[in-house]
Structures are given as structure tokens and as C-alpha cells.
């Protein structure tokens, strides 16, 4: 008969409850600060709901009324250099961290609202209303509140989406040698999301100082936690990843505070992450000023029972019992908070001159200028000014011939030697003599703690890279083994990293390089063989580069690593084994940013292409004898494309062929053709023609794979098609 031995989790799972003794021994100043913060946040949220009720909050107003205890209890003890981020319901966490930053010595209940606090309330409310003087210049609104100086990394409207970024911030804190930590707040709805669970795993594996703070308010909109999971005690998730996990009554700020103390002790000591589950209750529905019972998913009785445990009342009662305050002080605190908010609101809204008395409107001069709409989608590239640029045609020194893939490793080696901020993350990049293709060859041996083989969890490690980049102390390089994995990490790639700078006001640098390789022709089939350029070209924020030869690659990677925006560097397996010349000494040059390369000149047409298709096009021009301008675009995104070179050629030839290899649906050339027909309509003698793969993603079968992609034969056909449409004369 088998033996059955109970197994124990590697880390404990603990319920925490403050005792009366704890209340008695608590620092009265700490309790006063918590009471003051609770009231400021409550008054703030009431003002938001009041304005929302008047139709002055554009979009949802996710109120935290009822949940203030968890945020205040957890944030009140944090350092300014600690960081927090949160979710769509994040006003209370943001304010708790910001108030702690502007009032590091606590709050004075007699003089609750200092000018600094008033400013915080003003800039936060202005942001929620979408006004220019908000923390993110009105871009972020209620769900994207960021104040870097205060350690508020930015709240996030994607459920669980901010968690990997918080892991990256915590990783930066750890690598910088500090004992700082990051708290990531999210709700019961987020706990079943891959980003959260992947991040628990990754932070546990790498001992990253992150506290997962689950606000379990029992409802994901209207879906109950019991409906959503078989283990509604959500802190149980942490134990499975060997993370010490705590459960606490979130309506009791002191209990939360004590739980945080315990978790912080473990995390700051370098042991890795902790999980805290605080049971809280939002008094209102998901958003707006009506209770959940009005929507029928919970009862008034249940709401009454939770309202009876209001953290503001609980805090005041305990302090009164300890003789620290009386009803008069409580009423004064409440009044000070309300008056402060009335004053703030009065500076943002005014009587609507066209409305009835009492009808208010946003003060018109406070809106952002419409022209601000695209400012800061990317940076201004000032960080590249003064860089040493050098084209192959300009270089006359000694050269060596190398394989493309070795140039990939060489230029990374050179940059990592010169700049210890660079970290490389990816699957198997630290083994197999340089990863699956040798692109990190020799680097793991030379930089063992900077070439980081990740678990297979693209959302977590990509988001971690994003968090590292946003922190500013590191310049991460993330590798996707295959480009199709971007779909797995799509939230981090597109919603988070690509949008971060713009969404939070346009000023945060996101210096991240994402490397990946196109592998069409390698037989890896439908889910590995895309060209990601087309999809990334649709995404704001990203810059895209693709080199056709080792010399260009070196100069473009140097630019990518120096750039303060996220850069996708696309490589191709067909090119890895090809050889080309690079300088024997001195790899520290950049290709002039945003310039295409005119590889060949000819009058028949302009061929626009990139990466491996440059070679296929060259071959096709040779075999057909057609003379065309062959433009290697090199810099592919909307902001970086070399319109000068492209335009000059189109004005000369009047005929355009865009050549790429991959499936037509996700292809790159669509936006480019669109832009060309609008910019150069009067110079075109025929529609912009294109060479792409088929609609199907390339199959495993060698014949079907070949049929699905474009190579030299398809380029030849495309060239002939253009010639044919030039007329019969």
C-alpha cells in the first residue's frame, strides 16, 4: 500500500488580528496620522462622486469609499523611496502614498491640511477630471495616477496589468542594493489573472522585494469571489509559490499596519516577496454613487453590516477609547477634510453661465490644449544628439568579416562592458552557448548576474523589464525567443510599455530594447513564424528597427540601447549565418537615427523593404534585370521612417513596391502604403504594389511553409507586376 505523507508549504500562511494591547501600545502619532489620512481620502472620494453625479467626471469614477483602511494601514509605514502601484480603483492608495510623501512626520489633527497636502488634493482631483494641471497633465485620469517623486508608479486600468511592472521596480530596488520595496495593490478580480500569478512565481524565484497586496472586496464588479474561484481565501495563492502569505481584516487599519510590518521585515531582508490579503468592502457599486444593492447583486443587509465596520468610525472609536481624541476632534477632522475638498473643487469648477443656478462646469481654461494630444507618444531623441554616427560607406578603417549572429553578441558584449545598467532577460539566453541561436554567446560567462534566464512567462518578464526601464536605473534588453510570443505578453508590450510614457503625461523615459527573431523558413509552424513589424507599427510608443547586415545591426543596436523609448529590434534567422563586415576595432558607432539606406539605384520603381528581404530583392533585381531604387528602410516605425529618402525616390520613379515576407494580415506594408498614397498621390503612376506572404500563418509542412511566405520568386513576380502596370508603350 502506498504511504501518504502530508506535505507542508515552504512558507507560512497566517491570519493577523491586532489586539487591544496592540492598540494600547501603538504610537498615538501613528494613529492620528491614519485617522487624518482616512478622513482626507473619504472627503476626496465624496467630492469625486459629487462631481461625477454632476457629469463632470468623464469616464468611470471608481470610488474606494469603505476600503480606505487597507490602503492607509499598508502605506502609512512606507518610506518615500518605497514604491506603490495599483489598479483602476486606486485613488486611496495613491493618496495614502502621496500624503506620506508630503507629510513624512505624520498629520496634525488640529491643522490637518497643509499647503502641500492641498496641492496633492488639487493635482489629484485635477487629474481625475482630465485637466492640464493634474499629475499626468490630464492624460491619466482616475485610472492612471502617477507621481514618481512620491513613489507612486502609476495606477493601471488593466486588471493585474500593473503587477509585473511593480515587480520590475522592485527588482531595480534590489539590484541597486537598497532595502526598499514595492507594494502592488490589486483586487480579488485580478488574482486569477496570469500577470499576477506569473509575477508571484518570478518574484519568488528571484527573491524580488515585492508585496502583493490583495484588496479582497468580495466582488469583481458584480461577480462574487466565491463564484470566481474555488479558494476564496485569496492569500492562499502565495503559498503555492513559496511566498509567505497573510490574511487580515482590511477594515482595521492597525491590523493592516501590523501585517505590513511583518511582511516588510521579511521582504526588506532580501528574502523575496510577500502576499497580503486584506478583506475590505466598497460601500458603493463598481463606479458611481449608488450602492451595489441597487444593482441587485448583493443585499442591503450585507451592506449595512459592512458599513457598521467603517474604518473611519473604527479608528475614531479606538482612539477615543484610548483617550487620544474626543468627538469634537473627530468632527473637526471631518470638517477640515471636507472644507479642503470644497476649496479644491472650487478652483476647478465654476457656475455654468449657461446653466441653472447650481449647475457647475469645468473651468474652461483648465483643459489641456487639444494640440497636446500626441505630445510625448515617444521621446524627442535628444538623448541621441551628439552620438558618433558612421555609415559603412564612411568607414575606411580595418574590417573583419563576422557572422551576423556573432555581431549581435559582440555589440551587446561591448555595450554591457561599457554600461553596467544593461540587463538582458529571456528564455534560455543564459545557457546553450548563447541561447537558442547563439545571440548571447559568451555573455553569460562574462556577465553572469546580468544575463538572466527567465521562466517561461512572457507577461511577467516583459513587464518586469518595463518596470526596470521606468525606474530609470537600468536599461533592460528583453528577448522573445519567437515574435509570436508577443501575443502572450501583449498587455505588457502594448498596453503598458508602449503607452506608459504618453499615458502618464509624456515625460517618463522607457529605455527598453525588445529583441526577437523572425524565423520564417525554420519549420516552427503557425505559432512561431510571424514578422512582428506590422503589429508593432500600429502601436503608439514603440520604435522599430531591423537590419539587413551586421554593420548596420551594430550601429542600430547602439542607437537602440541609447534611446529612451522602447525599441523593437527585429532579427532574422536567415541572416544569422550570413557574413558581413564590421569594424575590426571600435563598435561604438550609431547608424544615423531614422535614415534609410539606398542599396541600389534605378529608374523603374522604388522598392521599399527591410531585413532579409533586402537580399531577396537584390537577387530578384539581378535575375529580372530590372533597375530599381532599392531602399532598406532600417527604421520602421511611424516616427522614425526616412520620408526624405523614400519621397525623393518616389518622386523620381513614380512606382512603388513594398516587399516583406510575412502573412498579409499582420503585414507591415499596409500602413506604409496608406501613408505613401496620401503623401505622394500626385507622383504615383499606379497603386502602391506589395509583396507579402499569404493569409495563412506558415505551416510546419515544408511545402506549405514555402507557399505561405515571400522569397526571391515572389519578389520577381512583384517586380514584373509593377512593370506590367506601367503600361504597354
Amino acid at each position, binding site marked *: 500500500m502506498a504511504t501518504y505523507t502530508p506535505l507542508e508549504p515552504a512558507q507560512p500562511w497566517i491570519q493577523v488580528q491586532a489586539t487591544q494591547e496592540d492598540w494600547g501600545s501603538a504610537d498615538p502619532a501613528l494613529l492620528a496620522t491614519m485617522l487624518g489620512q482616512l478622513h482626507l481620502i473619504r472627503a476626496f472620494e465624496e467630492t469625486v462622486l459629487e462631481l461625477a453625479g454632476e457629469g463632470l467626471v468623464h469616464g468611470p469614477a471608481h470610488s474606494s469609499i469603505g476600503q480606505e483602511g487597507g490602503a492607509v494601514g499598508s502605506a502609512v509605514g512606507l518610506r518615500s523611496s518605497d514604491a506603490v502601484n495599483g489598479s483602476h480603483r486606486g485613488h486611496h492608495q495613491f493618496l495614502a502614498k502621496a500624503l506620506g510623501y508630503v507629510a513624512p512626520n505624520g498629520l496634525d489633527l488640529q491643522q490637518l491640511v497643509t499647503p502641500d497636502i492641498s496641492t496633492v488634493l488639487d493635482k489629484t482631483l485635477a487629474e481625475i477630471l482630465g485637466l492640464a494641471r493634474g499629475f499626468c497633465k490630464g492624460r491619466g485620469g482616475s485610472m492612471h495616477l502617477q507621481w514618481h517623486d512620491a513613489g507612486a508608479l502609476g495606477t493601471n486600468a488593466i486588471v493585474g496589468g500593473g503587477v509585473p511592472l511593480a515587480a520590475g521596480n522592485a527588482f531595480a530596488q534590489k539590484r541597486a542594493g537598497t532595502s526598499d520595496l514595492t507594494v502592488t495593490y490589486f483586487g480579488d478580480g485580478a488574482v486569477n489573472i496570469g500577470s499576477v500569478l506569473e509575477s508571484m512565481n518570478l518574484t519568488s524565484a528571484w527573491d524580488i522585494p515585492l508585496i502583493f497586496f490583495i484588496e479582497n472586496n468580495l466582488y469583481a464588479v458584480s461577480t462574487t469571489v466565491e463564484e470566481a474561484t474555488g479558494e476564496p481565501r485569496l492569500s492562499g495563492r502565495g503559498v503555492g509559490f513559496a511566498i509567505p502569505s497573510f490574511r487580515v481584516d482590511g477594515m482595521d487599519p492597525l491590523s493592516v499596519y501590523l501585517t505590513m510590518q511583518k511582511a516588510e521585515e521579511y521582504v526588506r531582508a532580501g528574502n523575496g516577496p510577500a502576499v497580503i490579503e486584506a478583506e475590505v468592502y466598497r460601500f458603493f457599486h463598481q463606479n458611481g454613487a449608488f450602492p451595489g444593492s441597487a444593482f441587485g447583486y448583493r443585499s442591503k443587509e450585507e451592506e449595512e453590516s459592512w458599513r457598521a465596520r467603517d474604518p473611519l468610525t473604527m479608528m475614531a472609536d479606538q482612539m477615543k477609547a484610548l483617550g487620544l481624541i474626543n468627538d469634537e476632534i473627530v468632527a473637526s477632522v471631518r470638517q477640515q477634510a471636507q472644507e479642503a475638498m470644497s476649496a479644491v473643487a472650487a478652483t476647478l469648477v465654476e457656475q455654468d453661465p449657461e446653466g441653472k443656478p447650481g449647475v457647475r462646469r469645468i473651468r474652461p481654461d483648465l483643459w489641456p490644449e487639444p494640440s497636446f494630444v500626441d505630445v510625448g507618444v515617444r521621446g524627442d531623441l535628444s538623448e541621441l544628439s551628439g552620438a558618433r554616427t558612421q555609415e559603412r560607406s564612411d568607414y575606411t578603417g580595418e574590417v573583419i568579416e563576422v557572422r551576423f549572429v556573432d555581431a549581435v553578441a559582440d555589440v551587446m558584449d561591448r555595450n554591457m562592458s561599457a554600461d553596467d545598467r544593461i540587463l538582458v532577460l529571456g528564455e534560455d539566453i543564459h545557457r546553450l552557448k548563447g541561447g537558442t541561436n547563439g545571440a548571447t554567446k559568451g555573455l553569460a560567462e562574462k556577465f553572469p548576474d546580468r544575463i538572466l534566464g527567465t521562466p517561461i512567462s512572457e507577461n511577467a518578464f516583459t513587464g518586469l523589464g518595463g518596470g526596470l526601464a521606468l525606474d530609470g536605473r537600468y536599461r533592460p534588453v528583453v528577448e522573445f525567443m519567437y515574435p509570436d510570443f508577443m501575443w502572450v505578453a501583449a498587455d505588457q508590450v502594448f498596453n503598458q510599455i508602449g503607452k506608459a510614457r504618453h499615458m502618464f503625461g509624456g515625460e517618463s523615459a522607457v529605455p527598453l530594447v525588445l529583441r526577437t527573431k523572425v524565423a520564417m523558413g525554420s519549420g516552427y509552424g503557425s505559432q512561431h513564424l510571424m514578422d512582428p513589424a506590422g503589429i508593432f507599427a500600429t502601436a503608439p510608443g514603440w520604435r522599430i528597427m531591423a537590419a539587413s547586415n551586421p554593420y548596420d545591426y551594430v550601429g542600430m543596436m547602439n542607437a537602440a540601447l541609447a534611446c529612451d523609448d522602447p525599441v523593437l529590434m527585429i532579427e532574422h534567422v536567415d541572416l544569422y549565418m550570413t557574413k558581413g563586415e564590421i569594424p575590426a576595432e571600435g563598435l561604438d558607432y550609431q547608424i544615423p537615427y531614422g535614415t534609410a539606406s539606398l542599396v541600389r539605384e534605378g529608374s523603374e520603381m522604388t522598392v521599399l523593404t527591410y531585413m532579409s528581404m533586402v537580399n531577396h530583392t537584390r537577387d530578384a533585381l539581378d535575375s529580372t534585370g530590372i533597375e530599381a531604387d532599392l531602399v532598406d528602410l532600417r527604421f520602421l516605425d511611424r516616427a522614425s521612417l526616412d520620408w526624405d529618402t523614400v519621397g525623393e525616390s518616389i518622386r523620381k520613379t*513614380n512606382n512603388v513596391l513594398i516587399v516583406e515576407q510575412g502573412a498579409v494580415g499582420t503585414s507591415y506594408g499596409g500602413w506604409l502604403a496608406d501613408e505613401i498614397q496620401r503623401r505622394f*498621390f500626385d507622383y504615383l*503612376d499606379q497603386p502602391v504594389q506589395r509583396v507579402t506572404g499569404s493569409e495563412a500563418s506558415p505551416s510546419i509542412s515544408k511545402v506549405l511553409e514555402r507557399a505561405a511566405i515571400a522569397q526571391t520568386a515572389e519578389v520577381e*513576380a512583384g517586380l514584373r507586376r509593377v512593370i506590367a502596370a506601367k503600361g*504597354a*508603350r
Partner: protein
Amino acid sequence: MASVVRMPEVLAGATEAVLSTWSVAEGTEVAVGDVLAEIETEKATVEYQAEEAGTLARFLIQPGDSADVGTPIAIFTAPGDDDAEISRALADAGVNSAAAAEAAPTLVELTPSPSIAEPQASLVVDQQPALVPSASRLFASPLVRRLARESGVDLATVTGTGPGGRIVRKDFDAHQARTSAAPAGTVVAVAPGPPRNPAGYVEVAHTGMRKAIARRLSESKSTVPHFYLSADCRVDRLVQVRSEVNAAKGVKYSLNDWVVKAVAMAFMEVPDANVIWGDTAMRRFDSADISVAVATEGGLFTPVIRGVESMSLGAVNTAIAEAAGRARSGTIKQEEIEGGSFAVTNLGMYGTTEFAAIINPPQWGILAVGAATQRPVVENGSLAVGSVMTVTLSADHRAVDGALAAQWLAAFQRHIENPVGLLL
């Protein structure tokens, strides 16, 4: 009784037309003269009126559809006609009544529909939609529209050879070259950069000029009954007089100037030969308007020198030089290269001693002038050396008979052999 309305022949010779709009709704009762529809051809849009009273019961094509002339486009009913009557009319017209009920344009050549081209190679599938020409509007590439706007060209005068008849840059360029060139000069334009061909030959695409030459000269040679007369002209005196005149006046009249003048004088002497052939009548001219070939970089132009009979040799020389200058600078006008009853072509400068040329209709003749060379000649029974220039007249037998042509050629020979007369 129900009847079928067919696409009318709006314009003589038109084979198809486009229904722009139905002017009345389906089922409308109309009187004689009511406008039923607007019908458009390349040249005109006309109102199509009812020829009898009745009801326009069914539309068989939709606005924008193009249909061959004679194609049923609607069913017309008389009072009392029922559905059966309509069905019969449809059947008579060869229209499936179910399809017609939906006004499905099954009978008409229609508008672009996607079709799959033959794969060009086993792995290359070219899925470009086929383009079908439309009579309803003119297609020109954006580039051509801009060029036409800038140079004031009416694109209706340009024929397109791009997909679906689109006017593309090559068409425009060819049109520009043609309008500034001779209508039928022996122009050979060199196509830029012919594609290299591994088969051992190259294919040089036809230029518009090349095609025009081929078409016109094939037509001339196959429809104009040519006959040929040659004469060996003694030009010792012409050579002598020319060099004396050139020396005396400090000018450089070419031999060709003298030939053109002699041609004109021959017409004055044989006015019956100064004609062109027409379908119903011969047209006879009073003055001698002679086409002269001028070589330029862009090809050969044949400006017409008018009234040569009354010009001095110097004036002929000047007129030819000025026309040549305009031809070379591209400023020659269309009217300068139109007209004339006769042409002179001269290959003497290449050493050609004798050749025959093809007539450029509607002119009746062309004189092919060879090189003046020293040849053995018989003078008074003994052999001597003389300057001889062989000329060959190609004549249109419809316009000029052999005797008349011979008369004219003899007159020419007399004048060219007595050059002093040409100076008068």
C-alpha cells in the same frame, strides 16, 4: 403589348454606352417625349426619351452599368399588360425573368469583379483583381493627372495602356512626344534601358511613335497602290552653281534646298500632279506645299514648307532652317507638320545612291533622293565622268497615272539639271 427597350446608339459608330441615371422610377407611366434615362458615351450624355406612351415596368440594368448597343435595358408595357406579358417580353429579349426581377445585370458587361489570375509560378499566386475598362469615366494615374494639369493636356486625347486602360506615365510621355513630332516621320526612339534577357535577344517595347509609324506605313503600303519611276539626274552644273552661290553669298544652301525648289517648280509646270486622293474627289492645290524631313535627337520631323514655288532659294533655305530649329527645340506646332501634297526624303548623306520610299497619305507622292556621285556617263557617244543623282518617285496610282507622273518627273529633272533657273 410589352416591349423591350434597348440601349440606343447614341453616337454614330458607338458600340456601347453607360446608363447614367434612370430619370423615372420603375413602374412610372410615361408619355411620348418624357425623358426615361440619361445615357452617356465617351463623347456625350444624352436624354433618352420615350417613343411611345406606356409604363416603364422593369429596369434591366442599373445606373452606372455599361451595355452594348442593342442590349435590353428595360421593359415597356402598354395599359392592360400583366406580369405574364412582361415575362413574355423578357423571354423574347432573352432575359431570365427571375434574374430580371432583381434587375440583375446579367446581360451586361460589367464593372470590375475580382478574378484570380493564373499563377505565375507554382508558388507564386498573383491575386490582383482584374481591371475591366469602363466607358463611364476616364482612368489616369494620379501622376498623369498632375502632369496633364501642369502642361494643360486634355487627357481625353490620350490613349491609356495601363491596367484597365488607365493612362499611365508612358502613355502621357508618348502623347507629348507625338504631338510635338511629325505625324509619320521615320522616327526611331531609343527605349531607355531595355531589360536584359537571358534568351540572347532583347525585347524593346514599342514606343507610341514606333507604333504610329508601323500602323500608318503598313496602311499606306497595303492600301495605296504605289508605282515607281526613277531618273538619273546630271547634277554637274548644280554642284558647280551651288558652290558658286554659296561662295558668293557666304551662305550654305544644301543640295536639298535646291531639290525642294525644283520639286515646287515641277508642280508649277505640271499642275495636274499637285493633288491628293480623296474618297469622293481629288483635291488639287495651287501652291506647292512640300514636306521636308528634318533630323532631331527625338526623331525625324517633317515640317511642311508652304508656297515653295514663290520662295527664293534663300527663303526656302531659311524656312527649312527655322522649321528645323523649332523641331529641335520642341516648339514646332501641330499645324506645321500637317498638310502638303508631296514629300522629299533624302538619304544621300549616308551614301545611299538609290532607294524607294513609302508614300505618307494623303500625299500622292514622295521623292527619294540619293547621293550625287561621280559616275561613268555617255556623252555624245563617248564615255565620260559626270555627277549623277538618282531620284525615285513613289506615286499613288489612284491620284496620278504613269504618264502624268513621268511628265512631272521629267519636269523635275529639267529643273534640277538647270539650276540657274531655280535662282530666278
